[in-house]
């Protein structure tokens, strides 16, 4: 499968670390990008930069690709696990195969979370799989969920990396474990031919077309995401939707109502592994970067946000719950079998939306049941 022309033109410069020269990824990069864009390096580019990136440097980082081996633990717990006092956690683990995203959402938390002057793809996937195999052999029968879309979109550059193919093949050996790709792209064709163990979830962060068009720059459009999800469903992959972040705007009820209607028209409750909901939230300090990059014309930067108990800026608690209730009820109006859950939300919001904590909600109990700690819990990420 060819690499999307948008990606080829977006990347202005590619730096390949000398330790990655022989990797499969570097080889693919050399095959698809013109040679004059590629430079071999012995250290990370722009390493003289100190402190946080400016808005301009952050913009530039999306056009600079760095291929290098990752030197730490690939496998980490989801940031939600570190905030158990204020959030309900769903036992999610993350496998980071790169850093920074080639898409450009106004609310993206990477704007306050990462400080890399280049978009990085790790060339040592084999090492990640070795690490994962060690964990999987120890806990083969526990239902661990592993996602690759924490600090990089799982699939938006997968036409270049083909990481998905290696991961799907790996997870065939561990049918009780679940692999989750999380994306805002429609790049799925590169793995649809693979056989799998029925434990691969392809999930889309999705919003109404109006929000995608105004806030999710460089992503697949609404219809493209729905079409890609249908392709995956038809090939037996589990599909999930994260309606996250819910963004308040004057027509929010109409637009989120239509979003739910489109999902329910195209999928059956049993087609969808998960539907999660989350409302707009960000670290307070992130507002500066967002404002500098997107001005105040964005529904995100102009929103009325307030400091919440967990230290993040959120909508008023009642507004959040009104939005959650609306979406949940809209699903239920179609069919009571539709199940949703809240992501990165407080116990109070859970109880307000479901009259219950997640541990007591049918269909979610398993997901929220605490699992044994594994070695890499010591290396939790710190969002």
């Amino acid at each position, binding site marked *: 499968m060819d690499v999307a022309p948008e990606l080829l033109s977006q990347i202005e410069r590619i730096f390949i670390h000398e330790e990655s020269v022989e990797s499969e990824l570097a080889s693919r990069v050399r095959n698809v990008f013109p040679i004059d864009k590629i430079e071999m390096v012995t250290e990370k580019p722009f390493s003289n930069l*100190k402190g946080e990136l400016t808005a301009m440097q952050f913009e530039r980082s999306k056009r600079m690709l760095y291929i290098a081996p990752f030197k730490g633990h690939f496998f980490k717990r989801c940031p939600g696990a570190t905030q158990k006092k204020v959030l309900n956690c769903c036992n999610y683990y993350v496998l980071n195969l790169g850093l920074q995203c080639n898409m450009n959402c106004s609310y993206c938390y990477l704007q306050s979370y990462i400080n890399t002057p280049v978009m990085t793809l790790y060339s040592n996937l084999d090492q990640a799989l070795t690490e994962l195999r060690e964990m999987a052999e120890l806990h083969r029968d526990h239902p661990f969920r592993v996602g690759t879309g924490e600090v990089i979109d799982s699939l938006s550059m997968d036409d270049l990396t083909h990481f998905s193919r290696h991961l799907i093949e790996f997870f065939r050996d561990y049918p009780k474990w679940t692999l989750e790709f999380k994306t805002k792209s429609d790049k799925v064709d590169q793995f649809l031919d693979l056989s799998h163990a029925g434990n691969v979830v392809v999930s889309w962060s999705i919003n109404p077309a109006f929000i995608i068009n105004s806030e999710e720059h460089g992503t697949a459009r609404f219809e493209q995401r729905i079409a890609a999800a249908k392709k995956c469903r038809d090939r037996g992959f589990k599909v999930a939707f994260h309606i996250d972040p819910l963004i308040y705007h004057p027509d929010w009820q109409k637009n989120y109502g239509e979003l739910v209607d489109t999902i329910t028209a195209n999928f059956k409750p049993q087609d969808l592994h998960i539907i999660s909901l989350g409302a707009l939230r960000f670290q307070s300090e992130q507002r*500066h970067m967002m404002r500098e990059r997107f001005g*105040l014309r964005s529904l995100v930067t102009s929103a*009325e946000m307030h400091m919440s108990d967990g230290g993040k800026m959120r*909508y008023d*608690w*009642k507004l959040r719950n009104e939005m959650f209730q609306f979406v949940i009820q809209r699903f239920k109006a179609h069919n009571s079998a539709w199940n949703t859950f809240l992501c990165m939300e407080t116990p109070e919001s859970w109880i307000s939306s479901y009259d219950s904590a997640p541990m007591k909600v049918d269909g979610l109990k398993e997901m929220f049941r605490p699992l044994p700690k594994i070695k890499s819990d010591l290396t939790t990420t710190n969002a």
Partner: protein
Amino acid sequence: MDSENLINQELCPRSQCTNWLNFGPRRNSGAHKIGLALNGQMLLEAPYLLNYQNPSPQVLAQALKEAYGEWGVGELSRLVFHPQAPVLFQAPEFMAEFFAHPEKAQETLEKLSRLPLSFQNWCDEKKCSIQDLAILRSLDSVSLLTTLSEKIASSRLSKSQGVQVLEWSIELILLSHDAGSLLLDADEDTWLEELRKKRYPQTVATDEKSRAEIERLPWPKKTEVKWQRRGDRAQLELKLQTGSPEELEKQIEALQKAVIQWRLQGDSWT
């Protein structure tokens, strides 16, 4: 060569300085000038002297800190962006001696250097950090802020209030409000409240509606009720005084009636 060695050498007599960078007035002392000589030497305020032809930006920054003590952001903006300042002052390595995030700091200082001296002094008097002024980077040009920043400087706003006025005002300008309409001829509290109403119109309107509804409920005697916003939650604060179990029982009965009516009013935010 470390900064101590540099600044104690007699390299250049004061009379040979051809150019003086005046970045005063200063918050902590009267020393507010740096002399530059054609031979590449720099006369810091007596008794310090510095050859700045080849020092590293780090050494130069250290020397400036030793000679002039603590630097306020206003003072530093005037020095770094002085029209005749050596380009070395804008090197990230120089900035890194003063700030954890030198590239962002440089952008902020550049904006601050274009604002009136009275505001720069206000920032120094209030000990504003570079992060307090991060909002300045949101504007391509700070020319619209001249009157506003002068008004902040002449007000009795505390540091946090002044920084809040600045942030809300800039956001409102970016939302196409006329900068002049943000300058109220009112006391500081009213000014802040009016800006909050403009920046958070829906929150303020919803809170006011809820407050009015709450106050109309049939609360028992000796009860104080307040509708208070704390962060992302607005909620009822209820204070009740009671003198006997019988009185408390009556109050609880009355409270239950108030609760029923409150429920009837609905709970929609939008």
